[in-house]
């Protein structure tokens, strides 16, 4: 665990809980509001008592006043399925790449907070499909599994989000909170890629890993650019003008990505690999209202 997150940072995460925008659809008890009524702290409604109901929820004051048995109902607090999808494609770099490291750290933060909040946390690595999955786990004591899972990730393949989502969420997964950690550098459009999640009603949180070398490449002169995923070569005579055009194009691409998620009502957090990860992640997540 210590390889990804420091103890001090974990200690700071101990007091943080997840905030969900909508009621969750978990089946187990948890700390989040659910659409179901049952045992809980927050009053929801009354209904006539029927045989077999828990008599502890009878409203005796109403019985005294109306002489009728009325049952008090409460919102049931349920757990939240949290799906943390980590882009494990070649574009995220090798095992030593900062992008993949940062992605793993970010996934570890999310998993830790989720497990701390008794949510079912699933870790999924993907490229052109699901590569590896850690099924849903609950409880803080499952954090070691998550760390072990993250440590074992090695990037491979080409990114295909649509295929990944179709295959993973097409098997009747419970609606939950989907974290997608990726550099979002792929040919497919975001609309097509995220359509399966939209259809299943998941709440999406995008973690956009940004490498400063991608944002402002340190290239000059004649180079052959080799795509890490497709191995496609691109001859380029890199000039200052071309670099300026590249930076403008990258910013445009990043802005377009952010706008996509915002317009969909989802959360988007850019995570740079060159900054203070811990501070920036906490600030970003709190800023987006995910962490409390």
């Amino acid at each position, binding site marked *: 665990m210590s390889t990804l997150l420091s103890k001090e940072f974990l200690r700071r995460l101990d007091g943080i809980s997840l905030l969900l925008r909508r009621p969750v659809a978990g089946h187990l008890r948890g700390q989040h509001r659910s659409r179901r009524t049952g045992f809980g702290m927050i009053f929801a409604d009354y209904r006539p008592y029927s045989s077999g109901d828990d008599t502890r929820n009878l409203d005796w004051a109403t019985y005294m006043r109306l002489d009728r048995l009325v049952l008090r109902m409460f919102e049931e607090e349920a757990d939240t399925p949290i799906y943390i999808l980590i882009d494990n494609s070649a574009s995220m770099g090798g095992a030593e790449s900062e992008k993949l490291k940062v992605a793993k750290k970010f996934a570890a933060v999310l998993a830790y907070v989720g497990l701390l909040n008794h949510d079912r946390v699933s870790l999924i690595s993907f490229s052109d499909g699901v590569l590896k999955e850690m099924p849903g786990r609950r409880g803080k004591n499952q954090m070691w599994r998550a760390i072990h899972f993250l440590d074992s990730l090695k990037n491979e393949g080409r990114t295909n989000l649509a295929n990944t989502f179709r295959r993973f969420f097409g098997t009747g997964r419970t609606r939950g909170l989907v974290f997608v950690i990726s*550099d979002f*550098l*792929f*040919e497919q459009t975001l609309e097509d890629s995220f359509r399966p999640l939209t259809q299943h009603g998941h709440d999406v949180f995008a973690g956009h890993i940004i490498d400063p070398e*991608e944002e402002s490449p340190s290239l000059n002169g004649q180079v*052959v*650019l*080799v*795509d890490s995923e497709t191995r496609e070569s691109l001859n380029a005579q890199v000039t200052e003008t071309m670099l300026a055009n590249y930076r403008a194009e990258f910013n445009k*691409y990043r802005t377009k990505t952010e706008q996509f998620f915002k317009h969909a009502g989802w959360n988007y957090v850019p995570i740079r690999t060159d900054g203070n990860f811990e501070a920036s992640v906490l600030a970003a997540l709190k800023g987006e209202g995910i962490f409390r």
Partner: protein
Amino acid sequence: MMNFFTSSPLFSLLLVGLIGTVILLYLLRPPVLNRLISSNLIWKRVIGSSPLISERWQWWLSLLLALLITIFLLSSALRPSVDGQADDRTLIILDNSPSMEALTQSGLSRYSVAKDSVMKLLASLSKDVQVMLVDTQRQITTPSFSSVPEAFQILEQLKIGTSLEALVPSQVATVDASKKFIFTDGVLIGSAPEGFTLVSVFQLAPNVGITRLSFATVPGDTQRRQAFVEVVNAGGDSQLVEIELAQSQSLNLTRRVDVGPYEKVTHIFDATKFDSGPVKAAVFSSTDRFKADDTAFGYITEKKQVRVGFVANTQESKLLTLLSLMPRVSVNALTPAEYDALKPAEMSFDALVFDGVPAERKPIVPSIFFGVDSPTWLDITVTPIRSSQLAVKKNTAHPILRNISMSDLLLETAFVFGASDLADTLLEAESGEIVAVAVPGSVKNILLGFDLDKSNLTFLADFPILLSNSIAWLVDGAPILSVNPGVVKLPGDVTKVYRIDGVDIPLWFADGKAYFHTQETGLYTAFTSNGPLRVSVSQLDRRFSDINASKLPTLGSSQDIVNPGLRGYSFAFLAGALTLILLMLDWYLYHRRITQ
């Protein structure tokens, strides 16, 4: 291939340099950075505005470049001929005939303009081109192909010639050359030979020149002399011309005359006041653009009293009367016996006249024989003919018959002379028999094959002139030898030739004759065993003055021809240069990954 390397060291050096450069560039090529990046997605969009050619076209482009390089390299090395002609050979004919000395409107002579054009042409040729330079005056005796610098040297040595027989050597028609140029005014050589690029330097030039200058005594008054000056206007406009005859600054004659377009006029000057000696004739015109024919030189011979011995059987002769009436003649009559009794030492006559008397021995002084009867000392056969009313025709070129008419001469009977190189024919019958000859030599003789009483000669009006001319030819010394500039042929006994300013002119001898060469008009004196011989060198020829007799386009309309195609570079040179460029392009494209 060997020919290429041996004939063009410059180009072979270029090729070696090219190969070395390519190898060096190959060795020095910067390493291409292969950069593994996460994704080309953004880069594709950036570079998308200037897409590189597809791989298929890369292959074709690479192939095309390789083919072009191969073709141009082979073309450069093997130098394929065009239409069977060598690509790297240029033939240039430069007309340096006398008419090229005429000035153009720019003030330069036609020859200077032509020479400048040739120099420009030579300068525009690549150094590996072989050039044959040919002139029309045969100053280049054996034209051959040489390098451009050598052609420059040959060109510098060429001068305007004096020969009116301008000639393009016939062998140039068979010369194997890809480019053939002729620079001319077309006056003396006519049109350009077939297959030649004509560069005309012809321009109309006003010109008035002297075409004839001669001196003669006045018939009937041998103490008076006349000068005959023929002036021609070779231009299309009338010219006011001043004609001057001068022996010295103070002794001269001038006359202003109008000469119409293309008109020839003859003016007679009374030159009695001139002493014997050289005379210079000149014409002056304000617009004249050809000076070479503006001056001519002549020589007036010495006149002296002539002592004539008249040998005849009778003293009652019309001929004797006529001789005694001639102003410069003092005549003594002799009988044949008195003549035979004279010893050579006692001979005090300058000339003898035999009237119907056969001379048994060869006279030791110049003589005239009327009614020759087979003299044994004469190396010419003489045969009698019987005829009646022989009409004769004269040799108009001979000075004895100058300015007289013999059209009414009739002979009853005569002796005829056989043809001989020793004698000049004076009169011949219409049927071809020679009836009068003049024998030149140290002792001259005039022989007439008829008696005066057997012809009507004495009744002709021109008989006194004939007699005067005959005596003048016999005793007035050698006539002036009038020649054109160039090679002058003299008698074989000439030992020295001096210019009028005393400069010794070199001589050479061939075939029993003496020769000297002069480009300049003027007077020369040749010394022979018989005394001095005056040589007048003048350009007295109508063809010399006709500098506008050309049908070529005028100067200016053909100036652009001077710069030939390909900017003067040979195809081989250009092919080599293209090969170099293509190799560099190929190298660049390959290392830019534009080609494969």
